């Protein structure tokens, strides 16, 4: 599928800090593309340069094979990581305000339907809960019937239920064939919503592919984790499986044969309280790629 967005060697320098260091990727039309990484990885900077909000220090962003211009703003919808809304006006009035800014906006009823705004359409913006506020911001983002929707950490700070509700809204927008560019540091969110992910850290893209393809490339088998396995002298004497890694007080083993690994651990006479077994996920991949846990 032809890319709708293309990023070429994008760079951003803030005095002595290089926030983005030569990032390149393409976003095919109609998919949900995830930019993953811990706080400070540079994903928001990349997204804001793609939105045309920030001027890159180098490189270029292309939309439908053309540099982004004023027309681009009419064809994309944006939900920022943190945005205040005009105060003392209601949700409906806010939608009317933003509708007036676009040439062919969606009707308010349609937006309210998609984002489930009916319950608080006449409520003052200042009196919205976190989840309602995010739904309103998403509604504003989809008002122009955008070809690309940028969602920058849209579920940060929401409770689990509100997050799941928000995911269902994103699924509805995906169903409309809009291209979504999502940044998040929630790996479960990315795994559920994204068709392609780019994992970033320190301003660079470390990996880029479909989530399952990335996992298949980096992991075989099952991850076994043992927290608080015992003191160090006991560990040194124990006969652990060959690929066991001791990190941050946790033994982590990637096993192709779970029964054999469990037998080895039992024979090593370790404290197995709290042992967990799970299929590798994006978070495991990130830890493997960066050698550190997520900085939330």
């Amino acid at each position, binding site marked *: 599928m032809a890319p709708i967005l293309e990023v070429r060697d994008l760079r951003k320098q803030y005095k002595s800090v290089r926030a983005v260091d030569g990032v390149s990727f393409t976003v095919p039309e109609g998919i949900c593309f995830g930019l993953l990484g811990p706080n400070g990885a540079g994903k928001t900077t990349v997204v804001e340069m793609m939105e045309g909000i920030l001027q890159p220090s180098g490189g270029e962003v292309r939309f439908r094979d053309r540099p982004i211009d004023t027309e681009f703003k009419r064809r994309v919808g944006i939900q*920022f990581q943190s945005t205040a809304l*005009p*105060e003392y006006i209601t949700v409906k009035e806010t939608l009317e305000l933003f509708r007036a800014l676009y040439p062919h906006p969606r009707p308010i009823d349609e937006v309210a339907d998609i984002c489930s705004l009916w319950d608080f359409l006449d409520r003052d913006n200042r009196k919205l809960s976190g989840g309602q506020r995010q739904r309103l911001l998403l509604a504003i983002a989809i008002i122009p019937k955008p070809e690309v929707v940028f969602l920058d950490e849209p579920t940060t700070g929401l409770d689990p239920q509100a997050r799941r509700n928000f995911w269902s809204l994103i699924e509805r927008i995906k169903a409309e064939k809009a291209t979504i560019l999502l940044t998040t540091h929630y790996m479960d969110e990315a795994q559920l919503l994204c068709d392609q992910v780019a994992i970033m850290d320190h301003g660079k893209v470390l990996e880029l592919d479909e989530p399952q393809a990335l996992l298949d490339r980096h992991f075989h088998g099952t991850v076994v984790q043992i927290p608080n396995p015992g003191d160090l002298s006991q560990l040194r004497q124990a006969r652990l499986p060959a690929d066991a890694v001791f990190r941050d007080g946790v033994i982590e083993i990637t096993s192709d044969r779970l029964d054999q690994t469990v037998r080895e651990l039992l024979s090593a006479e370790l404290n197995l309280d709290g042992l967990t077994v799970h299929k590798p996920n994006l978070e495991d991949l990130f830890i493997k790629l960066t050698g550190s846990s997520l900085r939330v």
Partner: protein
Amino acid sequence: MRKFFAFFKARTMEFVRDRGTLFWNLLFPVVLVFGFAFAFAGDGEPLFSVGILGTPDEDLAFMEIEEIEFIEYSGTGNESREAVMERLRRHQIDMLVDFEAQEFAINRESREGPVLRRLFLADSAESLAAGGGLDAAEVEQREPGQQEAAQQESGQQAPGQQAAAGSGAATFTEQEITGDPIRYVDWVVPGVLGMNMMFSCLFGVGFILVRYRKNGVLKRLKATPASPLTFLTAQAASRLVIVVGTSTFVYAGTNAFLQFTMLGSYLNLLLVLILAIACMIAIGLVVAGRLKS
């Protein structure tokens, strides 16, 4: 224009629904004006105020009355005879004695004027009687209607002026003028309106823009096809309408109870108001453009 009116409407509604701002812009100035009017109401100074031009005649007993405050004016610049007459017209002083021109003037509509006139004429008549002129009692009893006869008697003719009496060798001519008093509150109202206008423009445009920038509203709008010019002109236009409206409300509301003295044209006043608001909004924009927080 659709974008302009959308921003205009949003900003105006934000103002109207923000009760705190509404109070400060509408009720506070009214309360301030009434407060000043109340605080400075009453009979004012217990003394008479008499303006003096030229070198005073120290022999005149009138000049030694302790209850009178004598204010000497230089006769030039904003203390010129015309300027001092304007003060008399506005009841800022009760009488003017011009020793150089040998004239005195009172405001016919001032309560203090006739009293001072009597005091002054009585004193002058005594001096004149002592010098062989008119009888003091005779001069004292003259009412304004009889002054013409007195002028003819003394042989002085001055159109619009009335001859009075002399002090020693000098003879004073009386001049009467008219004019409503300007009370303290009449001076306060323009000041309060101006202050209200300045605060409203600086905070309503400058402060709001800085706040929008800090909380990300400007960034959100930057991501839309709306141009900064459309947004800023809508902000300025909204504030212009609000300030004209609040100033009119404050003026009309307080005038209904206090009946101000209004000199000049309301149209000119409106024009000056609009220009002043535009200037203050421009300053607000400059401040907002230069300040980061």
